[in-house]
């Protein structure tokens, strides 16, 4: 699957991410204990377990139905900061996937960008604030650039994943200016951001699933 992301492939991505979150739940929570309130892993895990249990209800639906289900489920089961933000990501993607059963690479890129824009509009974080944006935005930029350079989707996603990883790693040195970590001021420096870490995992699952 290199030409377009099918309905089936998209569901594989969601399932892979749910599995990755389950695997990294404790690690994400521990990151959040260092500079937040120790719930990011539990939040994401609760949300994606709910998503898994509801996936059958949209088995017949298109990509928009799938993404909407994910977005609405995250919105109503995650809570905290990550619920509305990841929820918005998928709801925005759903808007770009209306009536579609597959997304061409450029359509996928546009959908993801709409999702990122939605997160920025809601959370008002800028790059460098030590949030999930610091993983998502570099990934998005790398994805667009690679596609513009006619790279294949798998290669473009590989580059996006790498950019997300670098972005995640760069958050370690940052002083947080948004979210709970910002209350720590300089004490937030030296720890990677939990949300950037879960965001990198999302890109990593895409790169791994859509080869």
């Amino acid at each position, binding site marked *: 699957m290199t030409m377009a992301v099918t309905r089936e492939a998209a569901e594989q991505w969601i399932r892979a991410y749910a599995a990755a979150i389950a695997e990294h739940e404790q690690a994400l929570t521990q990151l959040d204990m260092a500079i937040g309130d120790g719930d990011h892993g539990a939040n994401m895990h609760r949300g994606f377990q709910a998503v898994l249990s509801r996936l059958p209800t949209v088995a017949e639906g298109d990509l928009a139905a799938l993404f909407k289900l994910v977005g609405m489920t995250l919105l109503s089961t995650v809570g905290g900061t990550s619920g509305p933000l990841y929820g918005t990501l998928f709801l925005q993607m759903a808007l770009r996937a209306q009536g579609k059963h597959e997304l061409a690479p450029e359509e996928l890129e546009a959908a993801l960008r709409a999702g990122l824009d939605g997160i920025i509009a809601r959370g008002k974080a800028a790059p460098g604030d030590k949030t999930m944006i610091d993983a998502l935005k570099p990934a998005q930029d790398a994805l667009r650039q690679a596609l513009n350079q006619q790279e294949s989707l798998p290669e473009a996603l590989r580059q996006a994943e790498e950019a997300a990883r670098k972005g995640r790693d760069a958050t370690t040195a940052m002083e947080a200016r948004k979210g*709970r970590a910002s209350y720590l001021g300089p004490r937030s420096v030296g720890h990677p951001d939990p949300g950037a870490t879960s965001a990198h995992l999302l890109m990593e699952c895409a790169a791994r699933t859509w080869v």
Partner: protein
Amino acid sequence: MKKLINQPQNVVAEALRGMAAAHADLLRVNAEPPYLVRRDAPVQGKVGIVSGGGSGHEPLHGGFVGTGMLDAACPGPVFTSPTPDQMLAASHAVNGGAGVLHLIKNYTGDCLNFEMAAELARAEGIEVEQVLINDDVAVQDSLYTAGRRGVGATVLVEKIAGAAAEQRRPLKAVAEVARTVNDQSRSMGMALTSCTVPQAGRPTFELAEDEMEIGIGIHGEPGRRRMKRASAAEVAVMLVEPILGDLPFRSGDEVLAFVNGMGGTPLLELYIMFAEVARILEGKGIRIVRSLVGPYVTSLEMAGCSVTLLKLDGELLQLWDAPVKTPALRWGA
């Protein structure tokens, strides 16, 4: 993990069952989506007041549902904001035609979820006002932070706005009173120990036997700085001075002084702290005319306290004194 619980993931749902069993005379509990609502909601013609936030701060918010305070509370998982569907359902449940006021502690998660809830509620024809509570002077510069946190003042805002709503003031006026209470309140907290989120299973941070954290919030986060442990008298100065300087409070002011326990600190110590706070205020010519001492805005079993001062005027005083009948705050009824 030394907790009286069953499964960590069920603590909130089970505590809600306990609330329902203990306080059926005052409130009802909706299980899905979870919210608590005063028994006689919606009260026709009265502004409905909805608050909520992560659990682990009990009695906040559920313990303040009843006559003269909150109409509904939405509990999230421990230290995690509840979701828009809860807030939307609660808003419907308390809407008696005079609109709904959302009282929101200023944390990113709470703000985002309540914002989405308001969008949904308005789309469904409910008039909604929102007031952010952000009284924590430990967070200093809102350009570089998510802004000041909502801590101790939350109880005071909920009580006073609740009294205003009970008088059948209109939505804008109730919101106005809530904003005034928030504007006139300042808080600061400290911790002697961390706390353990049930699903995390171990303390959020570690403090040595001779250390304390100054400037903590209410989610087990470490505070602004770690220090050597100090006496109650010294701690009181560290908490009260930044509060006084910030509003600022001045000689001749009349205040409500609130010494709040973080959950694991016994009342004996809170009264020692109150004595120290009273001594400092007396030295500055600031008069304590109302007081509140106890664990009202907690952080699970964290040991520590926070101090909140609210500058009172006749109007706020009268609303504070008005009858309230909830599980955790009750007088005149």
